[in-house]
């Protein structure tokens, strides 16, 4: 078990190296000269050369890469060209904001999907099954920015129950999950973002629980005289590792943030930040954001794998 976890952690090293290489290469893949974007139109060639030196753009590529990785490893991702603030701080605060939404959305989606999917799997072909399948297809097909706008119109504009946008008076620096005055602001974006993972996780719960229920081991459980709820528990435990994998993947996608949803709700998360970095050609910010998001994704996957090995003894073989 411990051996498996250590081995799994060693695997992240090459993945992280790959990620840094891609992030670094972004600078060269982007059209145009990054220094150009910073310079005023009437800058002299000397000014340009100075800026290139300042940012190290005049060094050989591998030196630049090496320096960049070393600095990145110590949490220095450079300074945003636009805001002049450290990229690391900007990204981490955006990541925290997005984490509130994505964790909330995945939790909401998971709880609902788990209950509905299990009930559907236990009653395949019934009304409940059909209704939850419809809900899941709807969840997957409704564009979430559209849903976000509809929710704002209904609950913020018409009913006035919840705020339409923003993070509340405290802003993003001291967002507190326990403070209802702030939590209210997260509700509509969480619901909006939960719909797609809800559909996907529900489908996967229904399929994997139904599969587990069809297995021969269920026959033995019935032959042992276990009551239905005990049998369902077995089926769910069998299906759980698979559900966990789907859930982890959805969480990973959500942590990447949604440019559209965060823009609609004016929520300063990673999607928002990424959009800003692209639109203003802020290369250090873009690199830093992508790097942090990629590494978060890798870590989420690691956590899912470890959890899977806890829930599924068959994975533990080292």
């Amino acid at each position, binding site marked *: 078990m411990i051996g498996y976890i250590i081995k799994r952690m060693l695997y992240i090293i090459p993945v992280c190296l790959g990620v840094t290489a891609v992030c670094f290469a972004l600078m060269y893949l982007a059209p145009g000269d990054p220094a150009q974007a910073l310079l005023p139109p009437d800058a002299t060639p000397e000014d340009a050369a100075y800026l290139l030196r300042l940012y190290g753009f005049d060094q050989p590529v591998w030196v630049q890469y090496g320096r960049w990785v070393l600095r990145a490893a110590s949490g220095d991702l450079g300074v945003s060209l636009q805001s002049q603030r450290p990229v690391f701080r900007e990204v981490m605060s955006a990541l925290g904001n997005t984490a509130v939404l994505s964790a909330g959305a995945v939790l909401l989606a998971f709880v609902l999907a788990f209950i509905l999917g299990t009930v559907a799997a236990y009653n395949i072909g019934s009304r409940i099954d059909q209704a939850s399948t419809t809900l899941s297809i709807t969840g997957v097909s409704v564009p979430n920015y559209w849903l976000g706008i509809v929710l704002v119109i209904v609950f913020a504009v018409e009913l006035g129950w919840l705020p339409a946008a923003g993070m509340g008076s405290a802003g993003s620096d001291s967002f507190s999950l326990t403070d209802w005055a702030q939590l209210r602001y997260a509700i509509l974006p969480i619901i909006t973002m939960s719909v797609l993972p809800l559909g996907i996780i529900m489908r996967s719960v229904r399929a994997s629980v139904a599969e587990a229920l069809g297995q021969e*081991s269920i026959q*033995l459980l019935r*032959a*042992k005289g276990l009551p239905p709820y005990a049998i369902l528990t077995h089926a769910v*435990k069998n299906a759980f590792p698979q559900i966990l994998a789907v859930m982890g993947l959805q969480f990973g996608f959500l942590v990447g943030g949604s440019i559209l949803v965060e823009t609609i709700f004016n929520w300063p998360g990673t999607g928002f930040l990424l959009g800003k970095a692209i639109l203003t050609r802020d290369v250090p910010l873009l690199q830093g954001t992508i790097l942090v998001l990629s590494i978060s994704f890798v870590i989420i996957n690691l956590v899912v794998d470890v959890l899977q090995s806890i829930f599924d003894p068959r994975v533990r073989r080292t």
Partner: protein
Amino acid sequence: MRNLQTTSVAPVAKDMPLAGKIPVVSPLARVKDLNVQFRSRDATVHAVNGVSFDLMPRDVLCIIGESGSGKSVTMKSMMRLLPPKKTVMTGEIEVNGHKVLDLSERQIRHLRGAEISMIFQEPMTALDPVYTIGRQITEAIRAHEPVTTSEARRRALELLELVRIPSAVSRLDAYPHELSGGLRQRAMIAVALSCKPKLLLADEPTTALDATVQIQVLVLLRQLQDELGMGVIFVTHDIGVAAQIADKIAVMYAGEIVEFGSARDVLVNPAHPYTRAMLASTVHGQARDADLPVIPGDPADLRRLVAGCRFAPRCGVSKSLCLERAPSLVGVAAHHDAACHLINSLT
């Protein structure tokens, strides 16, 4: 092996006041005119058609017959394990005094695993891969008896020792994939025996095992049957296995019992042409543990049952009578029946 003739006579008979008269022992299980159909939108499958038999306490009955002849369905109906929505069952099944088909869902649950147990062919797929062996046994015990966790665990350990699993203590916390095939099958037997059932149903429990392991498991089953005094119904494809373990043999074809008798009678003096065809190729130099030989022709179509004898289309000696009227089981000798119009003309 025990004497085949004495198995169905209860030893207490001599001490009874009526000693000297014919000892009456009521059967452990009694199946009367069992019919099982699976209904779906486009067809009805007649899987079991008028099966009747009695199983005496401490008897081992082997059901043999080719694939699809209704062996597993017969066994599963004795525990009512078939999907209730699409299954229609008629007839009577009585196990240990309980009328199985009349019980409520709750009542039948109390029988399953307590008075009737079942072991399956493939222990790898029948055991739950994410539960430890110990857990799967204690769960069965605690479903029927109000015992504490530690008491259940102690009993689970005893059971693993009962089925001769070496270093049983450490196997309690093992997962099924950590055991070899033979040990896994022993673990499943332990699960089935956890509440000391009166009747054990074994559906091809050794088919998935290697030949040597197969013998060991078979010997173990026979010993346990004797020690615990269980009645056993044992389904197999393998005549060698049947010869080793059976007191009685029932031969099934197209959902019917076509021949029934003591193991010796059926194997030495088979009466039904189907039994003979099966045995013929086995006797002529086939390995003892080979599967039932294939008999030419297609198995009967259970969606459209023909009038007359269902084996007639494949039978080497059938007459026109066989295609017209279905034969019923008649005595060939004492306690030996076969369903064939031509029993008397065959030798």
